């Protein structure tokens, strides 16, 4: 696949606080809105970035003031690309329990990672497990 033509590229390093994370999320979501994203697919991106940001800040960096999260957002025609890199030890997404297993249904772990996988078009974790890269392709006017 050739590199898309990015209409909007944003990169910043944010402190490990959920306030800073939500500010970055709002910036992305407001920009998506201005590019015409709405409804179900907008919600999917909102859910995925929320879960990934909480993972990076809380579970990755453990909200340490000495650590930051590298945030990269890109938007092309009907495509959004997101990469978050924290400074934590990383985790193995494959090792998480399946939250939809009957015995894990009421447990708190793994639901965020699973939602990201289900709601985005593609998700990739680096080997160390401290970086998530994901993208969503918007289906255009399918019903019209």
């Amino acid at each position, binding site marked *: 696949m050739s590199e898309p033509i990015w209409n909007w590229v944003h990169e910043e390093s944010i402190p490990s606080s*959920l306030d800073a994370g*939500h500010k970055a999320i709002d910036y992305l979501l407001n920009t998506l809105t201005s590019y015409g994203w709405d*409804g*179900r697919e907008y*919600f*999917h991106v*909102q*859910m995925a970035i*929320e*879960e990934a940001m*909480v993972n990076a800040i*809380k579970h990755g960096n453990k909200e340490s003031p000495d650590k930051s999260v590298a945030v990269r957002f890109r938007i092309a025609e009907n495509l959004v690309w997101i990469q978050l890199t924290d400074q934590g030890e990383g985790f193995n997404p494959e090792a998480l329990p399946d*939250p*939809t297993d009957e015995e894990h*249904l*009421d447990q*708190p772990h793994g*639901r*965020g990672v*699973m*939602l990201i996988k*289900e*709601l985005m078009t593609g998700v990739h974790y680096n080997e160390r497990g401290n970086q998530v890269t994901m993208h969503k392709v918007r289906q255009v006017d399918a019903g019209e």
Partner: protein
Amino acid sequence: MAGKRRISVTDVGEISVVRFSDRKIVDSANIEEMGEELSSLVEKEKRKFILLNFETVEFLSSAALNTLIRLDKKVKAAGGKLIMCGLRSEIMEVFKITRLDRVFQIKKTEAEGTTAFGL
């Protein structure tokens, strides 16, 4: 009753109908506060039949889902029943993907939810 900031509660007979103050339930401090207010409803105020009306909620994170799971356990342990209603389609999709639609009893409207308690 202690003042509640994250939820509002209307008692209709034995049923406590809960509405949420936040359109987006994402902030972890707010989720914690919401969890405490919901727990207090069951543990301190001894309300057994809880109907959560999500009509005003546009978004909730998995941390909020975990709080709802904990509440459901408390309600069941107290011999009560928790029912949800008014979930918009996007949030309902999240419940289906995570199969939490099998953990929770979910109804479309507040009227259907109220009837489902069978009181």
